[in-house]
């Protein structure tokens, strides 16, 4: 089954061509240049991974990440940035990002990270489902 990703980046030229190349590799891609739109999209669709630019107008990547995680804690986020610094990378990872990839992007590396994110998400969703089932059974047995 194809990986399903959402890419959020304010550079529309970058969005357009990266998504085309990913689709050529069988990845199901949704894009938006607006982090505010991204918050709406994740409410109605599920993704194996979200690729999020760190610096965007409207809302910074870190804030968008925190708000996405509030809505869907199981979502796996990979940060992209043209402004790599160790401290920003550490901050992103501390917050729970899956990875932090500098631009220009190595597409093979990015797709590999997306596949790993898909597996991590599946494990997390499975754990959540088990926890939910356990809770229901515990309540029934009372």
């Amino acid at each position, binding site marked *: 089954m194809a990986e399903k990703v959402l890419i959020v980046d*304010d*550079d529309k*030229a*970058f969005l357009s*061509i*990266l998504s*085309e*190349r990913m689709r*050529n590799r069988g990845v199901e891609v949704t894009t938006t240049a607006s982090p505010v739109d991204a918050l709406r999209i994740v409410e109605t669709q599920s993704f194996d991974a979200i690729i999020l630019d760190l*610096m*965007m*107008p*409207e809302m910074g990547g870190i804030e968008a990440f925190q708000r996405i995680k509030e809505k869907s804690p199981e979502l796996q986020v990979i940060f992209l940035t*043209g*402004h790599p610094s160790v401290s920003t990378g550490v901050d992103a990872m501390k917050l729970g990002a899956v990875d932090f990839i*500098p*631009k*220009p*992007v190595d*597409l093979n590396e990015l797709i590999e990270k997306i596949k790993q994110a898909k597996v991590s998400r599946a494990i997390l969703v499975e754990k959540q489902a088990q926890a939910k089932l356990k809770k229901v059974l515990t309540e029934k047995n009372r």
Partner: protein
Amino acid sequence: MAMDSDEVEVAGIQFFGKMSASISHEIKNVLAVINENAGLLEDICFMADRGKPGDIARLKKIAGDVKDLVRRADRIVTAMSRFAHSADEPSTETDLGELTALLGLLAMRFAAMRGVEIKTLAPSDPVLVTTFPFGLLNLLWTCLDCAMKAADSGKIVEIVAAKTTEGGLVRFRRLEQLSAASIADIALGRLSALPHALNATIAADETKTELIVRLPKAL
């Protein structure tokens, strides 16, 4: 006049670092798109090798896009070069129209991040003053930073240079939220030595919607 104050030097280094980081970020973004275009060409070649030739119109579009990106990168690097050379001479004849245009280019990404549009209005004639261009850019950036916080509801800041009998001035216009505190922040606050070193004065106009930096003909 030598800019020998520690305060001015530290502010200058911080300013240089901030602008250099922003410029490198811009260049990285352009490289990222060029990289994707190169990758797309590789994909097309890969498919052609397997008997699915690429569409010529698509290839032409990629070539055109890469040329546009090279032009975009060239504008960024040209601005970076002019910015770097602004520190060459401690005192040199400087056109305020050109300097404010450079300021607009350097500040473009900062403005975009805040949702502000900067409009630099070119004067009809050169506005020449003898000054330290790098120090003046630093001062004007600090004013623009303040102006962007005070921008009008349309989120537009206009910058215009003009001649005066004493030398020249730079106006930052359409500032509805300009406060005495924000002016004091520049004129008396963390960069108090910079206006002094440049013999510049900073004040609001009578409508309190413009920030005006006045400069003498020479330091």
